[in-house]
């Protein structure tokens, strides 16, 4: 029942019943969700029709042609990309009904309370405690690098519920109400001067047991769903030649002959070649996916992306000479969206330092390539059979 024609018919019915021109944006998005046209691969009653994911494009094309509003996916990326698939897989029926609709329409923004000051690459060592008290869990701890925390209604949270067992086994996954009085959000100012992220302090936050996702002690397994979905989002973009970081510096080079030196020229050409080759590798990966032969190249794309962004933006600051000594604006701001190539060269240089840290450091990614792609032996694990409370910290 969910072939292309059927989806077109349903989309047109939606448009006829709720003409975008005369319908409130939110009303339209809610109606779209209820019609199963939000994410067609989700189950019926939860914004979908149980259709193949690839057919979403049919719906999106019809809606775009009709000038229908969208749910501004860039603003609610953590909800759509990470929270929703986890709720879908591990949530109770009640949880799915409560959370997914306002998540998708953007009425409720989500953030992620995973990383901690003492648990970065070693996320499973996290120390935020959740202690059972009657029907509630009482949570105390500190989270960090939390995008959107200042606008979020809900958070996905992992916390330690059993310190007596090895670290991966004593974690439980919750949905945390960001309006709870024990939740304090402080902007975390970055080296760029702005604050994309926050620190989140949790002090006696009470979370009802009904907001637990998955079984007690199974939080690490649940979190894998979240993290795997995070990595799906990286690296799929198709760029033209000179797309990305190499674009602005090439433009400056052409327009400002007075800045050119032989040394800079050699370095620029090398980076231009590397950018082009990296683009070709991404394109080859895309072609493999289309042909149904996914390759392991994806594991390396973020490594290349981070290194090139950093080297190119560093060269660009140097190329600018006297202007490279200046910075556009150190004012503390809270941008809603991140744009790696936005603003000027100095900003690009500083922001790209985060590219080799966020979403898995380059060092961890190199281990992943070495172990999963090349099959080299895993790192020795001295923490595997030790209770969390006995770990060095």
């Amino acid at each position, binding site marked *: 029942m969910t072939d292309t024609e059927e989806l077109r018919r349903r989309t047109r019915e939606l448009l006829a019943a709720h003409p975008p021109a005369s319908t409130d944006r939110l009303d339209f998005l809610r109606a779209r969700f209820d019609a199963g046209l939000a994410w067609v691969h989700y189950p019926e009653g939860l914004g979908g029709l149980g259709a193949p994911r690839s057919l979403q494009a049919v719906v999106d094309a019809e809606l775009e042609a009709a000038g229908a509003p969208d749910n501004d996916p860039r603003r609610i990326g953590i909800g759509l990309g990470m929270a929703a698939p986890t709720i879908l897989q591990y949530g109770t029926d009640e949880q799915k009904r409560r959370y997914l609709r306002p998540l998708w329409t953007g009425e409720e923004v989500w953030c992620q309370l995973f990383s901690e000051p003492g648990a970065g690459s070693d996320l499973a060592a996290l120390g935020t405690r959740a202690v059972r008290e009657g029907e509630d869990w009482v949570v105390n701890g500190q989270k960090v690098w939390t995008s959107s925390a200042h606008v979020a209604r809900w958070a996905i949270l992992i916390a330690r519920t059993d310190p007596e067992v090895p670290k991966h086994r004593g974690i439980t996954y919750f949905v945390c109400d960001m309006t709870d009085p024990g939740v304090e959000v402080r902007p975390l100012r970055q080296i760029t001067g702005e604050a994309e992220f926050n620190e989140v302090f949790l002090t006696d936050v009470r979370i009802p047991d009904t907001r637990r996702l998955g079984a007690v002690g199974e939080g690490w397994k649940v979190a894998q769903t979240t993290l795997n979905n995070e990595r799906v989002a990286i690296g799929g973009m198709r760029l033209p030649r000179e797309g990305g970081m190499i674009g602005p510096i090439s433009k400056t080079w052409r327009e400002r002959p007075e800045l050119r030196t032989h040394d800079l020229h050699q370095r620029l*050409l090398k980076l231009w070649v590397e950018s082009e080759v990296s683009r070709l590798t991404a*394109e*080859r990966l895309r072609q493999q996916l289309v042909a149904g032969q996914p390759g392991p190249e994806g594991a*390396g794309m973020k490594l290349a992306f981070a290194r090139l962004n950093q080297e190119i933006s560093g060269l660009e600051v140097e190329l600018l000479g006297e202007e490279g000594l200046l910075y556009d604006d150190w004012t503390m701001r809270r941008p809603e969206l991140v744009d790696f190539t936005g603003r000027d060269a100095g900003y690009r240089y500083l922001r790209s330092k985060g590219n080799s840290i966020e979403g898995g450091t380059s060092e961890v990614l190199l281990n992943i390539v070495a*172990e999963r792609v090349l099959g080299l032996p895993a*790192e020795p694990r001295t923490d595997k059979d030790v209770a969390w409370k006995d770990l060095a910290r």
Partner: protein
Amino acid sequence: MSDLLYSEEEDALRAAVRDLLTDHCDAPGVIARTESDTPHHLALWKALTGGMGLAGLLVPEELDGQGATHREAAVVLEELGRAVAPVPYLTSAVVATEALLACGADDLLRALAAGTTIGALAVSLNVAPNAAYKAVRHEDGLLHGELTGIADAAVADVLLVPADDGGLYAVDAGAATVTPQTSLDLTRPLATVTLDGAEGLLLGDAEPAVRRALRAGAGLLASEQFGVAEWTLTETVRYLKERKQFNRPVGGFQALKHRLAQLWLEVVNARAAARNAADALARGEDVDVAVTVAQAYAAPVAVHAAEEAVQLHAGIGMTWEHPAHLYLKRAKADSIAYGTPGAHREALAALVDLQAP
């Protein structure tokens, strides 16, 4: 956009070439041959050409070739690179063939396509596609002069010689004195060609023929370089899983894991660049940028991979007995062949309007 994958036919071709090389081109054999009077493996050449028709991939069917494209020739070169096979494939079936195609030299093309005649373009191996090359003197209808650094000339039956009148001449190898040079790359040896009043058959204008030949050579060399890099990485990873020191596999040390992961990323990139160059040559679109990018990128990757193979194999990698040195020598020589990475970057600067100061 280029097709950067391998077709089913290309995969089948690869499997056939790899089988043949596995049976007839093992490392001890190649090492032993390098110290003999006949470093080239002509029996293997016969199997690749007479048996499989691979010398004619770039030659149209009406001239008894296969009418295939640079994409297929690139796959053959990947495999020949993996085996550091001492056969004149790149020099005869690609470079000399392209020069003859530019001249419309049908009879010679038929002979080269069959593999029964081996051709060599008499231009030094280090010359980049846009660089100056040496021409011999054309006087009273005869050719005079000495050319150095001619790859695979020792087994060539016909030499394609640029002369100072602007012509490209076919010279029977018997009419020239070919003297082997002691070469860094033992598996693609160089020779000097001395012409002392040799007769030559005028094929056409040298300039367009040489440019076209060198460009195709540079572009497809990237596939050979990818083959060299892929083999050295794979073999190094295999060895480091096996080799134990300090009571654990050496490949488990993070300092080495990270180096190998970085190298893997370079090798993956080199494949995309090489496929792009082969596809561009086949389609005749965006060829100059694709070739210069591929050569500027793949040449240092092959060298890096071979250097890492020697270092990470450590003691055994330094021996004559272990094949790592064959790959190191091939990779280093390849990085100079048909233009250095720097020469290609310089050419690229003009192509993409990133001009020097």
